[in-house]
């Protein structure tokens, strides 16, 4: 007789809540009238995320950690990463709720009559909410998945909705659709690499569980292990946009609707780094001599290239895309550190970076002219004069990206570089500070454009943000400020939660 496996529903409950809400969202799409759909969807999304957060708080001290027949491990670090995803998603959903940014009808060909009619009827593509929730659910699963198949499933669950969401921009739709297609094709490639690597690892270890791979290390032909590690890493490095797998990032960041870019930039990083950390800290820890030099080189390349190429960017979204590449390099030094300090620093960094990123993209969404958002930096000149508050907040966020003291970006950088230095990776620290110096140049150039240049006639205006955007941007900015001036609480929590359980 078959006995039902014990799934550990309590541990899974935060994810179940989000997935269930996503399914309900689909039903709402089917049965709900057009008029209230957006409001209902938003309520469901916020409610589910809040509930998931409460549930995460309740399970934070549970002693049992594995669930769903050992395919998921909800340990301390896992809970912290999930909470980070949920908190960032809560802020992001308020930006996404600003329907103004999304196409009225995604199926209508850009420029066609059908599109004009949809716009006229004030149609809304409210499917973004269930898609968003599915993505969040996948992002929550990714960093806690402990076998290769679950990892792959989670990867696809959060990637597929993102491919769609990236193509839903209201304006410059062709650019948006191009971005979505690029993201999908390259993403599919990366997934294939991941799967290929997973097959090799299975062949090497005879098991798909990370713990099993770890204990099998050294027992068989190292070449299989090496190939497996490399290909799995490629899949993950693609998601965090590490060099040389970064080329999709600027195009997608630029083309996607700005709130989606914000969500993607903040939450995908958390999820993908969470999984990367777990895989390397648990699955490949025994084989560190194989991968550490490779990841070190990639980290250095990523931070240097991201910082250097960002200088040449004239579009603010592309610039932040390259800046996110550089930050991925900094974050990789936490992976290379392979220590509890490294993990704690990464957890802090991900939260701090996510908040800053959300606020920055939130503000980009506010800078517009009559045809929509303006992301050309040359037209941002004199913004500080027209709107001192928005200009100052954006300048503060840029300084945080640059890692100037008294911002959360600085504390994160300090924590992660200390961990890397501690573990003996001094080359990464030195490259990191040099890359930061290069990066400072383009952040500061934007500040100059905003404050030190006089506005020209065709420059842009800052729209008055909706209440939702206002809440979202101010919460993210204030949190970013607090974590810069008084980071103790978050740092201590990150340290307390920095344990992966095998």
């Amino acid at each position, binding site marked *: 007789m078959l006995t039902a496996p014990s799934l550990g529903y309590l541990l899974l409950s935060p994810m179940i809540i989000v997935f269930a809400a996503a399914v309900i969202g689909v039903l709402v799409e089917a049965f709900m009238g057009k008029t209230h759909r957006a409001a209902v969807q938003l309520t469901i999304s916020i409610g589910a995320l809040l509930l998931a957060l409460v549930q995460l708080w309740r399970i934070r001290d549970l002693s049992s950690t594995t669930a769903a027949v050992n395919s998921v491990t909800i340990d301390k670090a896992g809970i912290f990463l999930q909470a980070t995803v949920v908190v960032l998603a809560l802020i992001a959903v308020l930006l996404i709720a600003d329907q103004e940014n999304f196409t009225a009808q995604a199926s209508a060909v850009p420029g066609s009559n059908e599109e004009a009619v949809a716009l006229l009827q004030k149609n809304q593509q409210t499917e973004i909410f269930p898609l968003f929730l599915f993505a969040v659910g996948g992002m929550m699963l990714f960093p806690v998945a402990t076998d290769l198949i679950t990892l792959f499933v989670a990867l696809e669950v959060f990637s597929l909705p993102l491919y769609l969401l990236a193509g839903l921009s209201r304006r410059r739709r062709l650019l948006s659709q191009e971005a979505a297609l690029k993201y999908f094709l390259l993403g599919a490639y990366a997934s294939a690499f991941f799967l290929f690597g997973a097959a090799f690892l299975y062949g090497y270890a005879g098991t798909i569980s990370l713990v099993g791979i770890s204990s099998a290390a050294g027992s068989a032909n190292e070449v299989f292990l090496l190939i497996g590690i490399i290909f799995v890493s490629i899949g993950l490095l693609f998601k965090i946009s590490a060099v040389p797998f970064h080329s999709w990032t600027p195009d997608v960041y630029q083309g996607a609707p700005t709130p989606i870019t914000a969500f993607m930039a903040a939450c995908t990083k958390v999820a993908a780094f969470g999984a990367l950390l777990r895989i390397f800290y648990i699955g490949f820890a025994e084989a560190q001599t194989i991968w550490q030099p490779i990841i070190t080189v990639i980290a250095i390349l990523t931070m240097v290239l991201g910082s250097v190429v960002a200088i040449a960017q004239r579009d603010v979204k592309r610039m932040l895309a390259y800046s996110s590449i550089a930050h991925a390099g900094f974050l990789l030094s936490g992976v290379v550190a392979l220590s509890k300090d490294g993990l704690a620093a990464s957890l802090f960094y991900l939260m701090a970076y996510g908040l800053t990123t959300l606020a920055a993209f939130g503000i980009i969404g506010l800078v517009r002219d009559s045809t929509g958002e303006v992301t050309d930096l040359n037209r941002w000149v004199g913004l500080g004069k027209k709107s001192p508050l928005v200009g100052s907040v954006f300048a503060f966020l840029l300084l945080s990206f640059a890692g100037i003291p008294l911002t959360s970006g600085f504390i994160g950088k300090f924590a992660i*570089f200390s961990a890397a230095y501690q573990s003996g990776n001094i080359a990464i620290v030195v490259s990191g500070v040099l890359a930061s110096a290069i990066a400072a140049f383009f952040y500061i150039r934007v500040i100059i454009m905003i404050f*030190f240049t006089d506005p020209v006639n065709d420059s842009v205006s800052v729209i008055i943000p909706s209440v939702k955007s206002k809440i979202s941007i101010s919460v993210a900015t204030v949190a970013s400020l607090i974590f810069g001036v008084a980071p103790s609480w978050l740092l201590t929590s990150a340290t307390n939660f920095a344990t992966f359980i095998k």
Partner: protein
Amino acid sequence: MSLLTLVGALPLVGAALMYFIPSKNIELVKKFALLVTTLVAVASIFLAIGFDKSVTSMQFTQSNSWISAFNINFAVGLDGISLVLILLSTILVPIVVLATWHESDGGRWSVKTFYVLILILETMMIGVFAATDLFLFYVFFEAMLIPVYFLIGGYGSANRSAAAIKFLLYSLFGGLLMLASIIGVYVISGNQIGATFDLTQLATLEIDNQTENFLFLGFFIAFAIKAPLWPFHTWLPDAAKSATPGTSVLLLGVLDKVGTYGMIRFCIELFPDASKTFTPLIITLAVISIIYGAFMAIGQKDIKGLIAFTSISHFGFITMGIFAMTTQGMSGSNLYMVNHGFSTAALFLIAGWMMARRNSSIISDFGGLQRVTPVMAWSFFIAGLSGLALPGLASFVSEFLVLVGTYTRYPVAAIIGTLGIILAALYILIPIQKTLHGPVTPGNEKMTDLNLREKIAIAPVIAIIVVMGFYPKPVLDLINPTSEKVVTNAGFTDPVAEVNK
């Protein structure tokens, strides 16, 4: 809470209170800024009164946990060196506010913003000299760049935004190198005595030679950029030319001192062995700075550029004195920092008034000011003579001490450095002759002399320059014990018996 923290926080509180003053009421904003900065100056004099000269350990200390995860504390304290630098800063700020009353009127942003930035900067200047926690020092060191950046870029002249970004990038680059070294020191402390940023504890670390050399360089390059030492100096002339005279005073008078102060407090105290290794190189750079700065100053056509290059020459003297590793040299350099602060302030403020009246900063546009504006001309004359270290004026004592202190260990460097004094006579006296003496040249006939506000602002500076020239004992009494301690702790003894000061 120690008095030191209160003094440091006062300008910040003032900046916050500025919020309640309507931006349109410009006069009130300025008067309030003057009131706050004067209060700070008075309060800091109480610090000096309460300071016990016989004790060489830190005084007015306070330590509160700030970021417990890294054992970072809000730890401040004073010894003789930091006390005189804080006094320099707090006394200069109200003078600058009073002297440059109209400087902020034509800026990119409001007058209020200007004074808020000045007040924030003052807190950071006090903090950077008071911090006894390495991390806290770094935070002040880097964060103070931001208000200066906005002061240069928002209120300066001509190429202000280019100069501002050059200043910021140079400083950030140095700062980030220092960050790598700070992380290194922190990690090493974690391995040896438990992770800490406390300076006294960090000084006890045993670091192997190679690592120590690299860590030392991280700090030293940051401070050499700040000070600025040849060949890291190229940002300074641009910044000084583009900033308003008031900002330049704070930049050259106070902020650059952070560089030389850092060399003493961090390079020598934390890495005595590496300091020994690099001393010949640094002395060479310092001598080059002295001579190079002097020659460049002689060639300057612009008054602001002239003062900037004389400063590079003077910073060469200060660095030379520090790394001579003798008590006279160390005391002399410390005294020089104070004297240079006041002399440069006088030069820049008066030059600022001259330029504002003539609407030009080119030396050859002026001529015969002695007849038209006697008070302004005399003040400029005295400030200039102090700049060339004329006996009886402030800089002489310190320059003499530096040269004596250096001669006992590095005679050649001291002799070449002495050439700098001769060149100083050239670069000061020629412009003074051109601008002040001789016939009144066209364009200068209607120039007005200093008004009461300007006289009140410059009088204390001139008084300090003269008094410090004749009677530097009160300041030397504050400096000497700490200087001796630094030299002794670094493992040096004076080559000759100590001279009586």
